[in-house]
C-alpha cells in the first residue's frame, strides 16, 4: 500500500531491497539444510531427469512407476529381468519409499532358480540399500532375516536382522514377538546363545554388545526355568504346570526377570517358553497387524 504513493526512488529501493532480502533468505534456507539436493550415487541420468522435471512430485511419480513395476516380478519366471532395472529406477526417483525394497526382499528369493538365477543375492542387495536409504520399515530387515535363515542357512545374520526388525518403529506385535524369540526353542537354544555370544564378543559397538547380552540373558532365563522344571519332575514325578509351582515348592527362590519383559511358561513336556497371552506392554502398544 505504501509503495504506490512513494517516490520513484523509494520504489526502486524497495525492489532492490526485496531482491537482496530474497537472496539472503535463499542463502539462509540453504544453510539450514545439510546438503543441496543431490543425486543418489550409482543411479543413471534418467531418474535424475525425472526428478528434475517432476515439479516436486517425486514420491507420487515413484508410486505411479511402482504400480507398473510391481507386476513385472512375474516376468522373472520367464527369465526377463526388467524388474531389477525398473525397481532400481523407482528407488532412484524416490529413495525413501520403503515398499519397493521390502517387496523385492520378500519376493525375489521365491523365484525358482531354474527361472531366474541370483534372486536371493539381488534381494539382499536391494534390502541393504533400503536399510540405508528408505524410511524405517520393519519389513525390510524382517524379510532379510528370513532370506538369511531360509535361503542361506545363516542364523547369525538372521538373528541380527530380526533384532533390527524388532527395534524398528511401527513393527507389529507378531513380528516383534517372533523376532525377539527367534531361536529360543529348546533344541536351538544353545546354538542361538553361542551366536549371540559371538556377536557380543566381536563388536566394539556398546549398543550391539548390550543388545546381544540381553538376548543371552533371555536364553539363560529360559534354560534356568527348564532346568528347574526338570528338577521339579525328579522330585515330584510330574512337570510343574506353571512357574509359580517352582517357587511354591522351593525349587527356585525367584523367577528370573526377562530383559524383554516376557512371562515364562512351562510346556507339558517340561520345556520352557514364553507366554503368548501375556505379552509385554510395549509390544501390546504396537499395531496388531
Amino acid at each position: 500500500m505504501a509503495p504506490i504513493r512513494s517516490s520513484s526512488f523509494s520504489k526502486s529501493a524497495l525492489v532492490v531491497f526485496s531482491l537482496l532480502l530474497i537472496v539472503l533468505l535463499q542463502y539462509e534456507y540453504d544453510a539450514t539444510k545439510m546438503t543441496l539436493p543431490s543425486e543418489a550415487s550409482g543411479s543413471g541420468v534418467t531418474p535424475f531427469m525425472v526428478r528434475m522435471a517432476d515439479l516436486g512430485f517425486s514420491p507420487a511419480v515413484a508410486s505411479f512407476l511402482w504400480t507398473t513395476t510391481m507386476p513385472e516380478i512375474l516376468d522373472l519366471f520367464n527369465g526377463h529381468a526388467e524388474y531389477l532395472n525398473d525397481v532400481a529406477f523407482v528407488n532412484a526417483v524416490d529413495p525413501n519409499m520403503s515398499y519397493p525394497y521390502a517387496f523385492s526382499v520378500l519376493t525375489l528369493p521365491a523365484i525358482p532358480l531354474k527361472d531366474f538365477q541370483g534372486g536371493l543375492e539381488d534381494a539382499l542387495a536391494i534390502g541393504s540399500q533400503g536399510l540405508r536409504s528408505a524410511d524405517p520399515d520393519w519389513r525390510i530387515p524382517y524379510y532379510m532375516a528370513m532370506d538369511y535363515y531360509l535361503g542361506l542357512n545363516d542364523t547369525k545374520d538372521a538373528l541380527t536382522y530380526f533384532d533390527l526388525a524388532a527395534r524398528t518403529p511401527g513393527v507389529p506385535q507378531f513380528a516383534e514377538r517372533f523376532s525377539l524369540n527367534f531361536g529360543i526353542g529348546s533344541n536351538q537354544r544353545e546354538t542361538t546363545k553361542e551366536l549371540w555370544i559371538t556377536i557380543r564378543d566381536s563388536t566394539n559397538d556398546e549398543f550391539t554388545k548390550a543388545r546381544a547380552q540381553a538376548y543371552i540373558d533371555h536364553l539363560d532365563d529360559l534354560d534356568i526355568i527348564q532346568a528347574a522344571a526338570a528338577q521339579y519332575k525328579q522330585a515330584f514325578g510330574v512337570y510343574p504346570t506353571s512357574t509359580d509351582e517352582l517357587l511354591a515348592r522351593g525349587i527356585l527362590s525367584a523367577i528370573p526377570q526377562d530383559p524383554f519383559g516376557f512371562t515364562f511358561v512351562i510346556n507339558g513336556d517340561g520345556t520352557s517358553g514364553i507366554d503368548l497371552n501375556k505379552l509385554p506392554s510395549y509390544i501390546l502398544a504396537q499395531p496388531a497387524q
Partner: protein
Amino acid sequence: MRNIFVIAKNTLKLEIRDKILYGIIIFGLLYIFFTLFLSDLVLKELPMVKSFGLTGIYFFNAIIALFLGTTSFFKDVDRKVVYFILSKPVSRAQFLLGKFFGLCMVLFFATVILSVAYLGLILYEHGGFDALGLLAIAMQFLEMALFLAFAIFVSTFSSSLLSIVYTSGVFFLGHVVSSLLSAAKQIGLGGIKLVLVEILYYVFPNLEKFDARDLAIHAVAMPFTEFALAVAYAAVYIILLLSAAIWIFEKKEI
C-alpha cells in the same frame, strides 16, 4: 483497507460462481476418489496413498491458481469492471491488492474442499488424522499464493495468453532451479556459467522450498527455521511482485 476488503470479497463472489472453477474442483475430487483404486494397486501402502493424494491437491490447486491468476484481471478489463471500480475513490493499488486477496480466498476455498476429501481418504485407509499432511497442504497454499502474485504481476503488462505462458514457465522453472544448481555443481560447472546459474537460483522464485510433502509422506524432519524462512521468502516475494504489479499498473493507460 476497507476498499481492499470489499474488492477481495467481490472477487471471491464473482470467481466462486465460475463454472470452470467448479469443474476443476470436481475433477480434483474425482482424482482423490480415484486414489482409492490406486491405493489398491499399491496394496494400500500408506506413504504411496498419501503421495497420490497430496500430489492431486497440489496439481489441481496449481491449475486453479493458473486459471484464476491469468484470467481474473483480464475478465475485469473485458467486462469494463475495472473502469467502474477505478472511477470510484479506489486506487489502482487497492484494486490489485483486493484482487490478490480475493483470489487467495477462492484458492483457500478450493484447498479446503480438496483437503477434506484427502483427509477422509487417509482416514478411510486407516492412516488416522494426517496433521502433517495438512501442514504440507498449507505450504502448498503458500506456494500457490506466490504463484497467484506472479500471475497478477504478468497480467499487468501482457496478454492473457502470454500470462499463462509466463506463469507456467515460472512454475516449471521454480521447481527446476534447485536441481539445476545441484547439477551444475555435480558436473563441475565453474566461472561465469556457474555464476549465471547461481543468479538464476537466488533471484528466480524457488518453489521447491514449499514442498513439505516429504514431511507427511516420509516423516522427513523439516526444521522450524526452514518453515519460517520459506514463509518469509514467500511474503517478501509476494510483496515484491505486487509492488511491481502496482507500479506497472499505475503507469498503464486503461
